[in-house]
């Protein structure tokens, strides 16, 4: 069982070499991608217990920053994505400071993050120099690895796979670190944790910064993969929901949660598209039902359920 992650990784590494279908490579790439940004959300939402309904804020900042720097200044997105991450961390610190200093928790925190994301969305829609409601088309340079553009999808596949593995490794380390324990304490009972001497404000802010930066990196990847970003794709509530769905269904606060969730929802999405041809919107409906069901039957996601069974068995 312990070898499972390595086996899966080996399989993931080998698949693009064996499979010809662009569509399958593309689908897997997106699954890894959603797992990656889900992992970003997971740090703040799953581990620190602060559910944000507006994580598209950071995603959009990443996507827009790296794209704008490329379009306006010719800066390669390899560098631009870190600028985006830095900016996202900054915004995360500001919004985090405001939210946590004023004691916003639970629903209020979720909503205020949504409000921040919406402000960015409306601002992006109205500012011509970021492309307005049309957004940004990343100019195509063909196969240009130095500019984070590739003629073959397989490059993107491997890049996001590496990013995902790194993120999972980082989160695993975080889990077992002092910061991780403090985050868990806050998640379980913030007042009690404070009573034990944990500086909740600082811990939450740190979680926010890590979460924001990671999500922004995902945003930059997305912008390069699709060569396109607009205010709705970048900052929209639909995106915020997509980001949090995977870790929640898979199991918030676990390393595997976002991956499980992403494979489940991704597979389901493509499956329904294939089966129910003219009703492709069905998969979103199903996501809604799954979310409701998960909340009742799997309140700790699939991972929580697996662990429970593991304990019993």
């Amino acid at each position, binding site marked *: 069982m312990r070898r499972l992650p390595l086996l899966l990784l080996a399989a993931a590494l080998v698949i693009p070499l064996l499979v010809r279908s*662009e569509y399958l490579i*593309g689908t897997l790439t997106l699954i890894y991608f959603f797992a990656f940004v889900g992992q970003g959300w997971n740090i703040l939402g799953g581990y620190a217990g602060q559910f944000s309904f507006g994580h598209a804020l950071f995603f959009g900042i990443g996507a827009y920053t790296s794209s704008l720097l490329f379009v306006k200044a010719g800066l390669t997105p390899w560098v631009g994505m870190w600028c985006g991450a830095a900016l996202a961390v900054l915004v995360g610190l500001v919004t985090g400071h405001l939210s946590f200093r004023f004691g916003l928790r639970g629903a209020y925190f979720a909503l205020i993050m949504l409000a921040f994301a919406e402000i960015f969305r409306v601002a992006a829609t109205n500012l*011509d120099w970021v492309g307005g409601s*049309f957004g940004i*088309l990343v100019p195509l340079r063909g196969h240009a690895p130095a500019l984070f553009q590739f*003629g073959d999808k397989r490059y993107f596949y491997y890049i996001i796979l590496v990013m995902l593995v790194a993120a999972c490794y980082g989160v695993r380390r975080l889990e077992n670190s002092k910061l991780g324990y403090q985050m868990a304490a806050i998640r379980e009972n913030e007042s009690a944790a404070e009573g034990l001497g944990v500086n909740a404000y600082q811990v939450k802010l740190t979680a926010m910064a890590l979460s924001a930066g990671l999500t922004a990196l995902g945003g930059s990847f997305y912008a390069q993969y699709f060569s396109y970003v607009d205010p709705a*794709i970048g900052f929209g509530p639909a995106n915020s929901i997509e980001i949090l769905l995977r870790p929640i269904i898979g199991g918030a606060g676990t390393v595997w949660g976002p991956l499980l969730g992403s494979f489940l929802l991704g597979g389901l999405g493509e499956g329904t*598209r294939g089966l129910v041809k*003219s009703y*492709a919107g069905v998969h979103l409906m199903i996501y809604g039902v799954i979310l409701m069901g998960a909340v009742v039957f799997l309140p700790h996601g699939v991972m929580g359920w697996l662990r429970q069974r593991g304990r019993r068995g």
Partner: protein
Amino acid sequence: MITRREFVKGAAAVTGSLGFPAVLRAQPKEILVGETHPLTGGLAREGNLGKNGIEFAVNEINAGGGIRSMGGAKLKLMVLDNESKPPVAISTIEKLKDAGAVAILGPYASGLAFVTTQEAEKYKIPHVLDVAIADQITERGFKYTFRACPNAGMGATHTVDYLGAMARDLKLSVKRVVLIHEDGIFGKSTADTLQKLLPGIGMDVVERIPHSAATQSLANEVLRIKAAKADIVIPSTYYGPHSLLLRTMAEQRVDVAAILSVYGGAGSQYRFIKDVAKLADYMMDGNHWYNPKHPRIKGIIAAFEKAYQHPFAYEWMLAYQSAYVLKDALERAASTDRDKVRDALAATNLKDQIVPYPIAFNDKGQNPHARTLLMQVLDQKIVVVYPNEFAEAKPVIPMPAWAGRV
């Protein structure tokens, strides 16, 4: 460069039927034509019209003997739903590429076309657009993108020309123009173009009013139109707000000489007349339309209506036309090689089509002869009023006051 089709066992979730063109044959029995349209999601109505238009054309083409230069090979459509979403649109092109499509038709919307043409260019698959008017689509140096219809800039230019001609011919004393547009790229760029061109026909843009595309209320905007004492109101916006604009102007009794849109969201559409009945009368719109003088057009419209229970709509007309453009190219290429088809498309020279202009492509892939016409709703029917060579009726301007008729 694709010289051998690859045999693909579709992944479990691939939709549509796969043609199996295993090896390049000189005389294939079927030619796989890919199509991506929004069949669900926000643009489903238009996407389905486009799908029907292409299906209608392909049935005609096949019934008429298919592609003669390839031994009567029939066109086989592989239709994929892009759900009105750019990322899904990209995956549809991937699937079409995997399946070996010779060319790609669709995708209706500009936002979708930006990504589908990009993917098609990456995979070197010729892509013939149906609608998708954004100017920038053909400004990226792509060699595999072809657009037979007029783009946004051309539509604005022609409409201004028609307005100018109308003002001259009818000796109208209209001068004050108010532009009202959705605040996205379509609305803004059209308004920019109009602002530049209108002084050229002696008109003043006295107010320019942007509005939020998702708005439910245009009350403030109509108040501003009233305050500006407009002669002509030119909306460039989507269906909902366009309809809302008319209803609000009627309710607030804001009378103007004409409401004349450029690519109006609710313009030149029978469903709008169905929705608002008398309110639609006298509305003018510069938009895509058929050539009323074409000998076969009445028959085509009637046959389409019979097959799909839908009256004329330019969405299906342009899709239908794009299929015929491809057919013509296939005939001349006499090959399913994507590059040969692309070269044939580039050399297109079609006349007497159901669209009111000849079709050829400049080196950007745009048809420079394309144009919009000016239509007016008269007595609940949409008729062409300009230019004179296509006019079916004389325009009624100024339009009668709201009070008397709603």
